[in-house]
């Protein structure tokens, strides 16, 4: 009787997996907001469990199978460092894209490599995602990304190219690092009745302000910092940096926003004038206990940020980052920087603990 039931169960799973593995329209499915996030995530999990051999080995070692997963919290999150060590691709045989994203890094640092099977998914994720937060039709995109420009495989540059190309006015562009923003250029944007959405890595924008005169962007413009606050040159609080950016670009403090993204993710989250980020609908951020990464933490508990990014359907959607943060009930989250383990080998006098 038992073996009969097991056979039926296996057949049901097999039928499902056949359907799942042959799904050709993942891009429509994952962005379909009429389907619950949980339902889509479980589908993607089954697909990746079956077709991503790296993730499969990971789950198998943890004794996790589609049969043992009935809710999101059961899905193991794969450490993002995996992107530095192996090729993480679902349906490897089917991969014919030549788009590969690489994180920036010095020569002695291993870089994350994210192979993209279907760049259209990323394009859709970028454009559909940002439209959840901003009316692109009213905006001109400017980008100030020194350093990143040299990394031809940067996913951030790919995103900015996508945003610049979608603007039909021709006013969207990269700002040359060594050139002052001209008032005439600002005027041209104003004359078109548009605002500026100025993207830039935190240190790039700060460098710009250090080397050039302050400017006043058109009313309603947004300065969007994309992270990278800690560099070899300086380390500063986010609050302080936002204040400086607001002053330097002539916008209100609340018009300085942040974007959260990484090479290993194809979706973004945005913080619109505060510390709390809101994810696009096909991205969910959760927190995990660093000592027990399979255990989810409650809202407002500080832990490792976990990512469920459905746009990663062809690589791995379930990721454990090295970032520290917290979530709240409405799905928003905050980032507190990198997780620094305190209690390592060797004696460590900790002020808070001792």
């Amino acid at each position, binding site marked *: 009787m038992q073996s009969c039931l097991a056979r039926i169960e296996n057949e049901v799973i097999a039928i499902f997996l056949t359907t799942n593995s042959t799904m050709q329209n993942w891009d429509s499915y994952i962005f379909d907001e009429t389907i619950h996030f949980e339902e889509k995530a479980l589908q993607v999990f089954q697909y990746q469990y079956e077709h991503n051999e790296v993730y499969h080995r990971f789950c198998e070692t943890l004794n996790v199978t589609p049969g043992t997963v009935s809710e999101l919290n059961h899905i193991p999150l794969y450490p993002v460092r995996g992107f530095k060590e192996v090729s993480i691709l679902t349906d490897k045989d089917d991969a014919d894209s030549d788009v590969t994203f690489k994180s920036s890094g010095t020569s002695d640092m291993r870089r994350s490599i994210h192979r993209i099977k279907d760049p259209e998914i990323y394009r859709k994720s970028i454009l559909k995602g940002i439209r959840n937060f901003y009316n692109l039709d009213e905006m001109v995109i400017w980008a100030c990304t020194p350093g990143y420009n040299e990394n031809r495989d940067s996913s951030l540059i790919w995103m900015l190219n996508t945003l610049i190309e979608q603007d039909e006015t021709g006013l969207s562009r990269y700002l040359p690092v060594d050139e002052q923003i001209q008032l005439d250029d600002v005027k041209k944007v104003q004359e078109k009745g548009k605002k500026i959405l100025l993207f830039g890595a935190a240190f790039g924008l700060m460098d710009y302000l250090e080397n050039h005169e302050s400017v006043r962007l058109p009313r309603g413009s947004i300065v969007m910092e994309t992270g990278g606050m800690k560099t070899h040159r300086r380390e500063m609080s986010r609050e302080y940096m936002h204040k400086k950016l607001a002053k330097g670009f002539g916008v209100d403090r609340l018009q300085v926003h942040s974007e959260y993204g990484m090479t290993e993710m194809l979706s973004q989250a945005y913080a619109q004038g505060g510390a709390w980020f809101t994810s696009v609908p096909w991205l969910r951020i959760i927190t995990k206990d660093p000592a027990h990464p399979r*255990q989810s933490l409650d809202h407002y508990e500080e832990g490792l940020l976990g990512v469920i990014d459905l746009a990663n359907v062809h690589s791995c959607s379930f990721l454990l980052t090295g970032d520290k943060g917290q979530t709240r009930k409405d799905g928003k989250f905050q980032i507190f920087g990198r997780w620094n383990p305190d209690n390592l*080998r060797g004696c460590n*006098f900790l002020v808070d603990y001792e």
Partner: protein
Amino acid sequence: MAKPEDRLSALIDSIDRWLAKDNRHLQRAITQTVDNEYFSFEDVRHSLQVLNEELTRENLVSWGEKAGLFEQEGISDNVLCLHAGNLPLVGFQDALATLLSGARYTGKISTKDPFLLPTFLNEVKKTDIWSGSDVQWVHRLDDLHKMLCDAVLFAGSEQSVPRVKEKISNLEMEKPGTRYLTRTAHFSVAYLDQQDEETLKHLTEGILRYGGKGCRSIAVVVSPSKLDDLRDQLEEQAGAFWKVNPQHETPGGFLEYRWAYNESVQRKQLWLEDFLYQEEGFEFDHDFILYWKQGDEEEVAELADQWSHQVQSIYLPDGSESVIPGYEHETEPLSEAQAPSIDWKPDGVDTLSWLLENS
């Protein structure tokens, strides 16, 4: 101020009384430490045994001579020792060096090891040389508010050092010229060019003693052999070690996670339930993991250069003739990984010399 020779003799008397088998205070402290689950009985016993063997007149005189102790009267500084104990009595050497130097000892006893060290300090206070104001300690740093200190000794991570200094400053304990001896090394490396049973036994002790938590604990092994070549022997040695020294603290679920991750990237590893040995993939973000790298002496030197301030000691098997380029005079015998001599130098600095020379 008492002569250095007299201080040394008084300390030896204190140590003898402290380590005497009928010292009920120490026995009680051991019981409290074990009952409160700070450390296992086996680890406390090991730590005391090592001190018992090392704290001889001969060894202390030798340390004093090397440090120039007998060439001067001593120092009258107030030395603050911040003890952070990942293992039992880890701050003992700092306290002893301070007392030998002639300085006044002010200690912040470790929250993780609150009972053991005070039993020694109480014995010191019974002597004619040190009064209550010369040897004092607290369990909360805040209780030392405005207690000005000339020197501060402590160990910490590179991230924690600035915060400790800030705290000392905020508590108004700093004065112009207060000097700090900070140690940031947090793991050790062994070069394994021999595979006999005794060597593997020493290696296992070096890895697993205190749950691998000491800065002298071996976190990295470099060997001409692959991990797979010694898998069975290492597993057997770990089993034998734990039979006598059950691991006090067990790792959280992260270790299983790391194991699964290693499987996913097809990394060679040895899963020991409470410990994980893995080939390369260095990420010093968690305890309970030993990293194995196939390589020669050059490889050891390269890694030590790369991790510079993080590496505490480099060990060679007893009798090994290997030479680590650039570290010819800095290697230690593998058998002493968890049994350091009393004059060993944390982060390469002799604490007693530092106190005497920098006063």
